[in-house]
């Protein structure tokens, strides 16, 4: 027993058990279903939650295919660990911080600790026709994938123990507050009228900008840029991108929180934007590098999905095409020019695709949003309301600045306390073997 007491994961596990115990006492509750629930809406939201969950393993393969053979497991592991870790964080206190009763517009209180009071009755403030727990678990999947997106920036060089602590802190100190500002009742950006249908600011700008901070604090991989081997398994990346596209129908379509016409509209524009962006990237590659590439078309499609995310409940199909075209142009420039010029090593372009794509999507929502699609939304600049563009701009700046500064501080503190980077030797050997004592592939047998 004594030898375990010295290991930090032991204490981590002890805290996890303690919180669970407290929650068991605090959150003891009666759960009774009520007739107000709409079965169609609930069916779609639960389906959507499952679709969004699938996006994290999909992302694992999208990213995993792009790293070197010796690091494939580390990427898959980080995604799976986040799925487990953030789920528990969300249930114990994350959901309460994000969506619980508002405290001065900046954070939710801990009143819903351990899902206390989050039962099977609908919560009309968020979704009037589905059980509150359906909304909670749908949102849990967003809380999971957001920190997972960041790992594209520090892939192949972060110490696993630090990664776990970082993800937990980032979810608590960055994701939960920003989620509250934009989506929580009483959140100050929501009160401003900022439009973010499915997470352009909360998920993509937030994770994308955090990714940039990670790339800067961790520094370049050994050998970057010219001595890094190319993607070890592009077919994995294509599989991942395809499953991301599939899961995104739940991400955006599910964000209608019901199964009617708004979900349909979000579903349709999501598909259109992904297609327009994939096509645009393929053509840009063809023009600039004389060949259209597989990595290019899947990167473009994912960028299109990123950009349409905040706009998906507010724009029509033609607006979606413009958003798709625009995102590939901007992300292409970020990845091919900006990254090279400034020389940061955003290993898998988490900032280039999610940060830049998210910003374009949030701003483009302020251009193409129309009340003809969603009367609960607003008109954008092209529909006679330039003020909306400024509101979107403010939400982008606030989210980006907060995410960058907080991520930077968290990493600096962790670096001082426990070190963020794997040792040079470990990085050279590969994270699979050094961090997990496993190998993704065998050479013999």
């Amino acid at each position, binding site marked *: 027993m004594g030898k375990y007491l010295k290991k930090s994961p032991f204490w981590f596990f002890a805290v996890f058990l303690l919180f669970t115990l407290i929650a068991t006492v605090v959150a003891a509750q009666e759960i009774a279903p009520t007739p107000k629930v709409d079965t169609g809406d609930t069916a779609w939201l639960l389906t959507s939650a499952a679709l969004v969950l699938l996006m994290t393993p999909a992302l694992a393969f999208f990213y995993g295919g792009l790293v070197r053979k010796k690091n494939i497991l580390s990427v898959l592991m980080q995604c799976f660990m986040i799925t487990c870790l953030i789920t528990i964080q969300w249930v114990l206190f994350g959901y309460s911080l994000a969506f619980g009763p508002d405290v001065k517009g900046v954070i939710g209180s801990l009143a819903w600790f351990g899902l206390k009071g989050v039962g099977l009755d609908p919560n009309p403030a968020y979704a009037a026709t589905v059980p509150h727990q359906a909304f909670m678990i749908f949102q849990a999947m967003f809380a999971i994938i957001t920190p997972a997106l960041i790992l594209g920036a520090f892939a192949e060089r972060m110490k696993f123990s630090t990664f776990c602590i970082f993800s937990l802190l980032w979810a608590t100190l960055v994701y939960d507050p920003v989620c509250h500002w934009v989506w929580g009742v009483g959140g100050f950006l929501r009160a401003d009228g900022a439009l973010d249908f499915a997470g352009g600011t909360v998920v993509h700008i937030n994770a994308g900008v955090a990714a940039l901070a990670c790339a800067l604090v961790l520094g370049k991989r050994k050998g970057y840029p*010219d001595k890094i081997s190319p993607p070890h398994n592009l077919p994995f990346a294509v599989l991942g991108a395809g499953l991301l596209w599939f899961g995104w129908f739940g991400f955006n379509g599910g964000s209608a929180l019901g199964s009617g016409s708004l979900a349909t509209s979000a579903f349709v524009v999501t598909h259109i934007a992904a297609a327009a962006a994939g096509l645009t990237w393929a053509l840009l590659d063809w023009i600039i590098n004389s060949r259209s590439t597989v990595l*290019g078309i899947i990167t473009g499609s994912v960028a299109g999905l990123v950009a349409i995310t905040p706009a998906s409940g507010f724009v029509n199909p033609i607006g979606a095409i413009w958003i798709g075209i625009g995102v590939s142009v901007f992300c292409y420039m970020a*990845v091919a020019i900006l990254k090279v010029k400034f020389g940061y090593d955003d290993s898998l372009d988490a900032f280039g695709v999610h940060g830049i794509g998210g910003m374009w999507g949030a701003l483009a929502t302020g251009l193409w949003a129309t009340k003809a699609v969603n009367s609960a939304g607003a008109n954008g600049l092209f529909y006679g309301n330039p003020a909306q563009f400024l509101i979107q701009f403010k939400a982008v700046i606030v989210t980006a600045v907060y995410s960058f500064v907080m991520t930077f501080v968290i990493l600096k503190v962790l670096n001082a306390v426990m070190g963020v980077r794997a040792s040079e030797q470990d990085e050279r050997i590969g994270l699979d073997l050094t961090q997990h004592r496993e190998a993704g592939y065998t050479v013999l047998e």
Partner: protein
Amino acid sequence: MKYIIAIIQPDRLDEVLTNLEEREIHLVTVTSVMGRGRQKGIAEVYRSHKEAGSLLKKVKLEIAVNEDFVKSTIEAITSGARTGHVGDGKIFILDLPECIRIRTGEKGGPAIG
């Protein structure tokens, strides 16, 4: 005894194996390798980043033969692997001092067959 190493285009492998078979040369080891010659490989591009030091996929054959099979082995390889384009590959021939069949312990020429 000679030890023959040939580097050839991957798509010529079947032809070369058939030619070897026709000449009753059965002992062969094949590996998939990367390589380049004077013409170098084709540069790969990932998200607009051009890869340095490009290599092409090649196949390496290793064949141990008795002296009287050397000529027919070279014939089998050259006729099977030649396309007339750059990158057809090379054949290297080394002296082979010894060969032992693990199962029986036979040595030298009889062990190769």
